[in-house]
């Protein structure tokens, strides 16, 4: 068995500064790659969440931000009478920022009983009765609570709005985990002047997902000539619309990430090539001893793999730590997309590191295998 592990390890330790710098380059690229992919996974989860298929979102027509959508609260009762509608949740939304932001504060106020019945939330800390009882109480999504360090009993203040944190909730819908849920009337009173009786949106749950298009058209027809015409879309379409900018940003980041991987391939190839050029006589000695070119290809490839995987391990570990401890989320129009990691994404990053290593090793390995022994030792 040829020493495919011992020699490469020793050579990497021989030039510690070069090895560490190259590994850090790999780590930075893999960190970037995993971070971008974690946002992609978060977006994917947000779009495939819960009951998106059988939920419609009713907004005021031509609104460009939740803050500018004012619908009469009474619309809820009329929409509930439409055939195929299971429930209607009138929701008041108040946001800190309508544009893309890394730390958005998103309040949603709704009638408490309907809210708790229709949203797929589960209390993980606190007191639900207190939330029901106290008008200024709020349930805080787990992701937001983690990001802001909130716990039951805390008071949270944002602008004119101050709430008591009655509980922390988890949800099947990752978008919901970035929200603060409050009583509808409390938010109507707190968020503006003379806005009692208005909501931002209606969330319409259908008995059958197949009825979506028909019911949406019926709702918009019902209010077409009313004081506040509506625009009704399936929740998935609404989420896709709200996150379109984010998806565009993600496409750019992914392209950038691929370029980074390419740069890393060149960086590693350069480092290993330098190492191989330094060791021309050593490879010549190996060939003289009876080693074949394939043995040298294996050694150089393993050396490149070790270097790359060391960097990739650091990059993946850093990304895991940052993503899991920062609880960062990108929000746009009140739709919060958290960074998420899965074993699959980590495995993909490691796989890309392996492919990058093999690609980077190609030229140096062939150079080593093609060492011209007789030219190297010819002289006497």
């Amino acid at each position, binding site marked *: 068995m*040829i020493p495919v592990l011992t*020699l490469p390890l020793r050579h990497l330790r021989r030039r510690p500064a070069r090895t560490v710098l190259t590994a850090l380059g790999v780590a930075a690229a893999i960190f970037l790659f995993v971070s971008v992919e974690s946002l992609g996974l978060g977006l994917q989860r947000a779009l495939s969440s819960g009951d998106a298929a059988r939920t419609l979102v009713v907004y005021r027509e031509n609104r460009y931000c939740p803050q500018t959508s004012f619908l009469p609260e009474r619309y809820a009762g009329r929409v509930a009478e439409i055939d195929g509608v299971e429930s209607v949740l009138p929701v008041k939304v108040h946001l800190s920022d309508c544009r893309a932001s890394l730390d958005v504060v998103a309040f949603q106020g709704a009638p408490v009983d309907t809210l708790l019945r229709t949203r797929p939330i589960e209390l993980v800390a606190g007191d639900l009765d207190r939330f029901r009882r106290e008008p200024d109480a709020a349930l805080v999504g787990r992701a937001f609570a983690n990001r802001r360090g909130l716990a039951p009993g805390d008071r949270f203040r944002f602008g004119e709005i101050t709430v008591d944190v009655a509980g922390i909730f988890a949800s099947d819908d990752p978008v919901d985990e970035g929200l603060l849920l409050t009583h509808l009337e409390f938010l109507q009173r707190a968020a503006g002047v003379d806005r009692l009786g208005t909501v931002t949106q209606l969330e319409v749950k259908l008995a059958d997902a197949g009825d979506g298009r028909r019911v949406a058209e019926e709702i918009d027809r019902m209010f077409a000539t009313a004081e506040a015409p509506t625009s009704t879309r399936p929740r998935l379409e609404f989420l896709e619309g709200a996150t379109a900018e984010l998806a565009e940003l993600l496409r750019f980041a992914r392209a950038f990430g691929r370029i980074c991987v390419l740069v890393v391939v060149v960086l590693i190839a350069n480092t290993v090539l330098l190492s191989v050029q330094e060791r021309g006589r050593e490879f010549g000695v190996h060939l003289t*001893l*009876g080693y074949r070119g394939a043995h040298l290809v294996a050694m150089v490839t393993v050396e490149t793999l070790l270097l790359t995987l060391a960097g990739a391990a650091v990059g993946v570990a850093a990304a895991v730590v940052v993503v899991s401890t920062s609880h960062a989320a990108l929000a746009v129009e009140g739709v919060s997309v958290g960074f998420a990691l899965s074993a699959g994404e980590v495995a993909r990053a490691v796989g890309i590191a392996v492919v990058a290593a093999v690609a980077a090793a190609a030229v140096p390995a062939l150079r080593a295998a093609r060492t011209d022994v007789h030219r190297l030792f010819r002289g006497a």
Partner: protein
Amino acid sequence: MSFITLDRVTKRYVKGDHELTPLKDVTVGIDEGAFFVLLGPSGSGKTTLLNLVAGIDRPDEGTVTVAGHDLGALSARALSSWRAEHVGYVFQQHHLVPVLTAYENVELPLHLFPLDRRERHERVALALDLVGLADRASHHPRELSGGQEQRVAIARAIVADPPILVADEPTGDLDHEAAAATLDLLARLNRERGKTICMVTHDRSAASVGTRVLELRKGALRETGDVEVSP
């Protein structure tokens, strides 16, 4: 037929704009167990001839036959395997791998053979003992003197017990004392272990350890009259 036979061997190579012919129509036979010494000035083609015998280069014309194998007829893969089994190579500069200890350097050729760790250990220990460096096994090359490094290189060349040792100016970089010790070691390996040794040198005094000495000049071999050979 001799153990090593070069039959009408010509070797050319290009250096810059010039084609050089270090070996031209060379024929020589070396018997098994001989200590063959090749003298000649720098650039005369001594190393080229040695590389042909060791199977790390191929002639442009003629044949090189070693222990019954026509080296020109072997594939690159077969030639590598043949080299591992039949030839130990000692360079002018020891060319030890700097990141490996003396023990690990000597062990390098054994990784090509189906030996377990214990068998490899026995062989490495024996080789280091033969060159008198058993107590330096864990030292890295930078911790050894020039003479000790060359002796480790010799241990590496003999550890797989090849029948042939080729040595290219093995004393060229050593002081007088270390050079004498190295030549004595090679002579002992020839006498006591029966190794066929092919050594090139430009040092006529070093040639006296040989049982046969030839001189290479202008691509052709000729017997030397002024070197007293060992009996």
